[in-house]
C-alpha cells in the first residue's frame, strides 16, 4: 500500500543528494556580496529537496515484500566489490524527511548578515548532501565516505562561525569523531574480509553482508580468554555511533559543541547528526551482528539508561539555556538508545519514531532559546523572568514544545517514549524503570526551564516583545508534527513495520 507510485526510471535518491549539492554549486558561483541571492538559493535548494523527499515518503510502498525501495546500484570499484548503491527502507525513510525538514529550517533561520555567508551556505548544503548520503548508502565504503564528508563541513561550521571557545569545541568534536570513525573503518574492512573468506566474492554491499553474519571466536593472547569476532566488530561500529549519538560517557564533546555552534548548525547537529549515530546502530550493528547485539545489548542499555538519568540531572542545574537543552537532548537520546538495544519490535519502532520526534523537539527548543537570546541578549536563566506576560503567543508555543519535550501523553514525545519503555520492559525491566524515573525528572527540569524564564514577576528584562510571525512560521511545521505524531501516529508503524520485522536482530 502507498499513496501513489512514483515512476521507476528516475534516480530519486540520487536527486536527494544532488539537489543540495547543485545548490551548493550555484552558491559557489554567486558573488559574495549578493547575500540575498545566496540565502534564496539555499532556501530554494533545501525546499526542493524537502518536496522531493516528501514525494519519496508518499511513494514508499508499505507492507512486506519490498523492503528496500528506490534502489540504485552501479559498480564503482568492481574489483573489490565497491558499488554506488542507494536505497531507502523503514529505517531511513522518515529520517530522510527529518533531514530535509531540518535543513530547510536551518537555512531559513540563517541570518543574512552572517559573516562569510557564502561559505556558510555552501558548507550547510554540502552537509545536507552528506547526511542524506549517509541515510541512503547501502555500500559500506560509500557510507564511510559520506560519514567522513559530514565531518568536514561540521568542523568548519562550528570552528569558524561558532561562539565562545569555538575552536576548542570544534576540535574536541573532531578528535572524538575521528577516533570513532577509525574504529569503524577497521571494522568495515574486517567484516568484508571475513565475508570474503566465506564467499570468495569481495563485497562492501550491505545487502550481501547482511546475508553472511560474521562468526567465530578470537583467542586473546596470554590466556586472557576469548572474545567473539562478531562482538569485536560490533564494538568497532558501536564506538563510532556511540560517540556520534552520544552514548554516556562519551558525551563530553556534546555540551561544548552544542553551545558553541551557531543556531542553524546546532539545529542540524542536535536534531539530525545525533540521530545518524542511532541510525548506524540499527543499520549496521543490529543488522550485521544480531548475535552480538543480543549479547552486548544489555550492557549498552545500561549506558543508555545511565545517559537518560545523567543528562536529566545535569539539565536540572544548568544556568545556560543552551547547555540545558544540550543535556536534555542527551537524556532523550538515552531513550532512543534504550529502544534500540532492547532489540525487539516495539523498542526499535519506538526508537525510530522517537528519532524523528527528538529531531523535531530539540530543533524547536534550540530555536526558542535562540529567539529568547536574540531579544534579551542573554541565555542565563538567572537573568530571565516573566517573559510570558508580554508575549502570550510566544509563551503558548514554548509551552507546547516544553510539553512535547517532557513526554506529555498526547504529544509526540510520549508516543516514542511509551513504545521504547514497553520494548525495554520486555527486554530488561530495571532499565525501563530507570527510564521512567527519567520521565519524572524531565517534567521537573523542563518546567523549571519554562516557568523560570516565562513566569513569575516582575518581568526581566522588561518589555519583552511578542513572537514574530516569521518565527512562528518556522515553528509551525514542528508544532504540527508534535500534535500529529502524538494523536494519530498510525502511519508510522504502517511504513516501518515490515522493515523492522525483517531485521536480523528480530529474526534470530
Amino acid at each position, binding site marked *: 500500500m502507498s499513496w501513489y507510485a512514483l515512476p521507476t526510471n528516475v534516480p530519486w535518491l540520487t536527486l536527494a543528494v544532488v539537489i543540495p549539492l547543485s545548490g551548493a554549486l550555484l552558491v559557489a558561483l554567486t558573488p559574495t556580496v549578493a547575500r540575498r541571492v545566496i540565502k534564496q538559493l539555499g532556501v530554494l535548494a533545501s525546499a526542493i529537496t524537502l518536496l522531493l523527499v516528501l514525494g519519496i515518503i508518499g511513494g514508499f510502498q508499505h507492507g512486506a515484500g519490498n523492503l528496500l525501495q528506490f534502489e540504485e546500484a552501479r559498480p564503482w570499484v568492481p574489483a573489490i566489490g565497491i558499488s554506488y548503491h542507494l536505497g531507502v527502507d523503514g529505517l531511513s525513510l522518515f529520517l530522510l524527511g527529518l533531514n530535509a525538514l531540518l535543513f530547510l529550517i536551518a537555512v531559513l533561520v540563517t541570518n543574512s548578515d552572517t559573516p562569510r555567508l557564502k561559505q556558510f551556505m555552501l558548507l550547510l548544503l554540502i552537509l545536507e548532501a552528506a547526511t542524506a548520503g549517509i541515510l541512503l548508502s547501502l555500500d559500506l565504503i560509500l557510507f564511510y565516505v559520506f560519514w567522513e564528508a559530514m565531518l568536514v563541513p561540521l568542523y568548519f561550521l562550528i570552528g569558524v562561525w561558532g561562539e565562545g571557545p569555538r575552536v576548542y569545541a570544534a576540535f574536541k568534536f573532531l578528535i572524538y569523531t575521528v577516533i570513532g570513525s577509525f574504529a569503524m573503518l577497521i571494522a568495515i574492512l574486517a567484516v568484508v574480509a571475513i565475508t570474503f573468506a566465506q564467499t570468495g566474492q569481495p563485497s562492501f554491499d550491505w545487502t550481501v553482508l547482511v546475508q553472511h553474519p560474521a562468526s567465530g571466536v578470537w583467542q586473546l593472547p596470554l590466556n586472557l580468554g576469548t572474545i567473539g569476532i562478531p562482538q569485536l566488530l560490533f564494538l568497532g561500529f558501536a564506538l563510532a555511533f556511540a560517540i556520534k549519538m552520544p552514548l554516556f*560517557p562519551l558525551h563530553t564533546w556534546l555540551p561544548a559543541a552544542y553551545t558553541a555552534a551557531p543556531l542553524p548548525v546546532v539545529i542540524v547537529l542536535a536534531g539530525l547528526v545525533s540521530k545518524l549515530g542511532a541510525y548506524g546502530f540499527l543499520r549496521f550493528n543490529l543488522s550485521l551482528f544480531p548475535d552480538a547485539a543480543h549479547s552486548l545489548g544489555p550492557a549498552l542499555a545500561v549506558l543508555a539508561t545511565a545517559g537518560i538519568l545523567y543528562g536529566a540531572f*545535569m539539565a536540572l542545574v544548568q544556568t545556560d539555556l543552551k547547555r540545558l537543552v544540550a543535556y536534555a537532548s542527551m537524556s532523550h537520546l538515552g531513550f532512543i538508545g534504550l529502544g534500540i538495544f532492547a532489540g525487539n*519490535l*516495539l523498542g526499535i519502532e519506538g526508537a525510530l519514531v522517537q528519532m524523528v520526534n527528538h529531531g523535531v523537539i530539540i530543533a524547536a527548543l534550540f530555536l526558542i532559546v535562540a529567539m529568547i537570546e536574540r531579544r534579551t541578549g542573554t541565555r542565563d536563566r538567572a537573568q530571565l523572568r516573566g517573559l510570558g506576560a508580554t508575549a502570550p503567543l510566544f509563551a503558548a508555543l514554548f509551552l507546547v514544545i516544553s510539553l512535547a519535550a517532557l513526554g506529555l501523553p498526547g504529544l509526540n514525545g510520549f508516543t516514542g517514549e511509551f513504545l521504547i519503555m514497553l520494548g525495554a520492559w520486555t527486554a530488561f525491566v530495571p532499565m525501563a524503570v530507570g527510564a521512567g524515573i527519567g520521565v519524572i525528572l524531565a*517534567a521537573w527540569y523542563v518546567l*523549571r526551564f519554562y516557568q523560570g524564564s516565562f513566569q*513569575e514577576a516582575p518581568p526581566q528584562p522588561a518589555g519583552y516583545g511578542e513572537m514574530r510571525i516569521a518565527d512562528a512560521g518556522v515553528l509551525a511545521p514542528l508544532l504540527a508534527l508534535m500534535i500529529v505524531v502524538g494523536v494519530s501516529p498510525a502511519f*508510522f508503524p504502517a511504513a516501518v513495520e515490515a522493515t523492522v520485522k525483517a531485521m536480523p536482530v528480530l529474526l534470530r
Partner: protein
Amino acid sequence: MDTLAPLVLLAPLAGFLVNALIGRQLPRRVVGWVGAGSVGLAFLFALLILAQVLQGQKLDQTYFTWWQSGDFNVPFNLYVDALSTLMILVITGVGFLIHVYSIGYMEEDQGYSRFFAYMNLFVLSMLLLVLSGNLVWLIIGWAGVGLSSYLLIGFWFERTSAVLAARKAFVMNTIGDVGMIFAAFLIFLNLRVMDYTAIFGRVHQLPKGGMVITAICLLLLVGAVAKSAQLPLHTWLPDAMEGPTPVSALIHAATMVTAGVYLVARMHLLYDWAPTAAATVAVVGGVTAFFAATIGTAQVDIKRILAYSTMSQIGYMFLAVGIGAYAAGMFHFMTHAFFKALLFMAAGNVIHAFHDDQDIRHMGNLRAGLPITFWTFLVGTLSISGFPLLAGFFSKDEIIRAALNLAGSEFWLGVLALITAGLTAYYMFRLFFIAFGWEWLSRDDRHLHEAAPIQTVPIVILATGAVVAGYIPVSNFLSPIFGNPVEQNIAVVIGLAALSVLVGLAGFGMAYLLHARRPELAVAWRTRLRPLHTLVEHKYFVDELYDLVFVRPGLALARFLNDRIEPKVIDGAVNGVADFFLVEAKEFRMIQTGRVRSYALWTLGGAIGVVLVVAAFLGYLPVRLG
C-alpha cells in the same frame, strides 16, 4: 450512540479551539458563553446518551488506529456504559454550572479567554479519560487533566507561589502517570491487549491474587493516588488552591481528583482478582480520610480547609471501591460533586467579598450581607456532615455500612470512617461558625455585597442537588456493571444511620461549643495540646519530609554531577592522564598540541570503559553485572 459519544468530546474541543486561537479578539461576553455553552452542549449530548443507556445500550466503538504493529494494537475507541455515563453527566452538568459561575467570577480578570480555554481543555481531557476504551487513551486523558490542572493552578503565573504549586502538582502527577504506564505494560505483556473489552475478557487467565495482577493493580493505584491526592502523593492538592476558585470547585473537588476512584471502579474486574491490592486501596482511602480530616481541623485558610475536606471525602470513596462497594463509592462521588462544588463556589463569593482574603478569622457575620451564599453554604455543610436525609447522609452511610458489614481490617476501617464522619462535622462547622458567624459573634461590620445572580444561581442549583441527590438510585443504575445492591436488614440500616447521626451531632456540638459558644475554650485547648496542634497545623510535616528526602538530595546530586563529576571526572580525569603525557612529552621535547592528545586519550579511555562494561556482561571479568 456511536456519533453521540464523539460529539460529547467535540463540543468542549471546539470551545477550547475557539477560545485558545481567537479568544483574545472576541468580546468577553462571547468568550464566556462559548466556554460555558460548549460544556452545556456536551451535557445535552450526555443526556441523550443517558436515555439510550437507560434502555440497556452500551458502546465500544473504534474510530481510528493509534498504533498497530505485531500484536500491539492500540485503537482510539470510546467505551460507554452506565459508569462512564454517570461520570460524563456529572462532569458536564456540574462543569456547566461552574463555567457559568466563572463568567461572573472571572469577569475582572485579564486572562479571561485563556481561562475558558484551559477550562474547556480540562473538560475535554476529563471526558476523554472516562470515555476512552483503552489504556493508552486513558493515559492521554489522564495526562490531559493533569496538564489543565497545572495550567489552572498556575493561572496567575506572576505569583511565585502559584508557579511552584503548579509545578509540584505536575511533577507529583507525573509519578502517577509513570505508574499507570507501567501498569499498562504489564497488562499488555501478560494479556497482549490494550482495550478494555479484551482486557476484561482475559483478566481471569491470570492466577487470582497472583504477583502479576497484584502488581498491575498496585501500579494503577500509584496513578490513582497521585491524581486523587491520597496518601502518600497528596501534598500537591492543598497548594493547588492557588488556582482561581472555580478551578478548585471543578477540578480539585468535583471531578478530576475523583479520577482515581473512577479508575478503580472501571478496573473493578482486575481489583476483584487482586484482593491484596484492593485491600491496599481500602487502607489508603480509610487512612487518608482520617488523616486529611484531622489536618482540616487546624487550618485557617477557607480553601485549604475545603481542600483537606476533599482529600478526606475522596478517602471515603477509595475505601468504598477498595472493599468492593463500587456503587457506593460512585454514589458518594456524585453527591460530593454537588456539595463540594457548591461549598467552593460559595467560598469564592465570600473571598471576593473580602477582597481575596482567605483567612477565616477575618470573616464573620455573613448572613445579612451574603444571604444566598450564607444559606447555600449552610446546606452544603449540612450535607457533607451527614445531616439526615440530605445527599451526603445517604452516600456516606452506604460506605460506612458496607465497611462495618465486613470482618477484619475492613471493619476497623469502617470504624475509622465513622470517627472521621464526626471530625468532618466538626471541621466543617468550625469553618462555618468562624467564617460565616452568627450575629452575636459579629466582629466585623464591613458592608458586604452578595454576588451577582450569575454566581448565585448555579450555587442554588447545586444546593438543590446537595439536598435531593441522595434519592437518585445510583446503585440500581450501575447494577449492570457492579451487580445488584445487597438487600440489608432495615433495622441495621436505621441503627447505623442513627449511630452516624449521633457521631455527626457530636462533631457539630464540639464545633458549636468551641467556636460559637465559648471560643475562649478553643484557645485554652490549643495551648494545652500545643505539640499535637502544631503537628496537625503543619500537615504532619510531610512537605518538609519530602523536601528533605527527595527534592534537596535530587538537586544536590545534580549539582554534584555538574560541579564535580562532569568537569573533574568525566571530562577532566583524562586531562590528568593527558597532563601526565604532556609532562612526559616535555621531557622528550615532543610538545605539540597537548589538548588534542588529551581528548584523543579520553576518547580511548571512554572506549576502554565501554569494553570493560561489555566484557563484564559477557562474563570475561570477575565482576557480574547482569
